[in-house]
């Protein structure tokens, strides 16, 4: 179905490379990448740190923090916290900084058939 040629938004002969190199699209792509790439690197490293600590430093993880709750449990629960926070941050960022440009570009491209 070669990307469903029958329902492509613009005319088949549209110059997609021109759109791709245009200032608005470049800005949209930049905004997406400067946000998601560092965050992805962060949560992968943060998660791997957790896995490695749990595997190779169990004694440290067993250190009590309060009552029977130890460092390992707190560290694990913090993984939940960071996952929820990153989800919230991304949703907010996408709604405010990505959607407006993406919507504008989409309308422009779909109108100029």
């Amino acid at each position, binding site marked *: *179905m*070669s*990307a*469903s040629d029958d*329902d*492509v*938004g*613009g005319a088949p002969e*549209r110059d*997609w*490379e021109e*759109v*791709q190199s245009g200032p608005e*699209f470049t800005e*949209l*792509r930049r905004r*997406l990448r400067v946000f*998601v790439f560092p*965050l*992805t690197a962060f*949560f*992968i490293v943060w*998660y*791997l740190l*957790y*896995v*490695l600590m*749990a*595997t*190779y430093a*169990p*004694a440290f*993880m*067993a250190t009590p923090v*309060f*009552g*029977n*709750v*130890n460092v*390992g*449990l707190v560290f*694990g*629960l913090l*993984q*939940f916290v960071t*996952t*929820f926070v*990153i*989800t*919230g941050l*991304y*949703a907010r960022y*996408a709604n405010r900084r990505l*959607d407006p440009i*993406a919507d504008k*570009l*989409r309308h422009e*491209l*779909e109108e100029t058939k």
Partner: protein
Amino acid sequence: MTPASLVLADTGTITEINPVLNMSVFGLFVLVTLFIVFRASRNTKTAADYYAAGRSFSGPQNGFAIAGDYLSAASFLGICGAIAINGYDGFLYSIGFLVAWLVALLLVAELLRNTGKFTMGDVLAFRMRQRPVRAAAAIATLAVSFFYLLAQMAGGGSLVNLLLGIEGDVGQNVVIAVVGVVMIVYVLIGGMKGTTWVQIIKAGLLIGGVLVMTVWVLALHGFNLSELLADAASRPDGKGEALLAPGAQYGETWLTKLDFVSLGIALVLGTAGLPHVLMRFYTVPTAKEARRSVVWAIALIGLFYLFTLVLGYGAGALVGADEINNAPGGVNSAAPLLALALGGPLLLGFIAAVAFATILAVVAGLTITASASFAHDVYVNVLRRGAGNQVNEVKVARITALVIGALAIAGGILAKDQNVAFLVALAFAVAASANLPTILYTLFWRRFNTNGALWSMYGGLGTALVLIVFSPAVSGSETAMIPGADFALFPLSNPGLVSIPLSFLLGWVGTMLSSERNPKKQAEMEVRSLTGVGAEKAVAH
């Protein structure tokens, strides 16, 4: 084997497990969902209806359906049991399963929704040579779905043992077959819309039931987590203080430690490569709704895993390791036994029905994904070169669903004594090795081409499968699938540590060795993936 009705005898509170009650609650669930599936099927006409539910679900609805698809028997029974017996190490699974969703949220969900139609193959075929990449994507999809299906059906087998008091091979096989047939009916009649509704209902029941049990367990311990942990650690039959720290299960040698790191990597990178997860993003009308559905899914799945932490330690404290290990179904019986200890046979009946519903819903989701991949990628685009019409395509998908359903029943009967969580971990490793590198390269790397995709997919899939065959999980140990033989040349039971980086590397090498470039298609794909221009619209009925 201990008869199910005597499981709790040694606590002095002999509570009969009531198979009739359990079956009735489950039967009620099947009747209600079948009714909904029939109603939902009235509008299923086109391929978009059958595979993608007309793209008409809202973000929150799809979020519930994703949770329903993802919170499988391995998550519920497996993790509760692992925490009850091995304590902290079971918790590590749930963290990997949850954090993995960030890969889907940040890198995959929206871009995939904007560029594909029904399957992973659609996205790859956008800018690469169609027939080879679709064939590869379909093979990878079928392989991952097969492992995942086996895990679910194996879980079904051990559940039957415990919950229905049915012993002996014949009885269990009959129940597995009944579960398989009901699932096939859902998929054949309801398509994606019916399947999605089954998953939404199941997710609601599962999370609701687990919430009630969590509050109950916490209430028994004065809403004090520390006190619950103390009770679990002070049981004489458990692992004591070792339950509270990592290492009870994986900390033996440097190899078991490395194996755990390998598992951790497979878990976090596997989710965004699971075909049945990817396909769920096509059931919503826009990329924005795909984003909302992942946000909802993360909230629901995260809460669920927090609950299982309490339930796992609760089962360790209130039921105890001895009873769990000696119960039919073994480790997997921790959550049902906890329900029995808390609320008696009625709560057990409810939890049992939810657990069955869980297996049913997940298996249905896998079956529709595998059949879509075969019908859409292989039949229409590879064999018929795009000439098949939609009516034919849906017909082929239904026949494929029937075949896969039959295979799942047969596989479930053969695999029913296997370790559920282990089989799921393998499915994750295969998904992360075969699918994820290609998906990420396709979406983010301009130079990527057909050759790179084929090297990465076949290389990743092949390496993962070969390493599994020669792993200690298959032979060479008492707990292996084939305990008698020993051809375990590869020391790790999870291949992720080797096969995932290798697949990324092969994708890069394969790309560089080929001169194929397609800047026009890449430009079109990138613009469409970020803006949603020309994305598949919802079907209006």
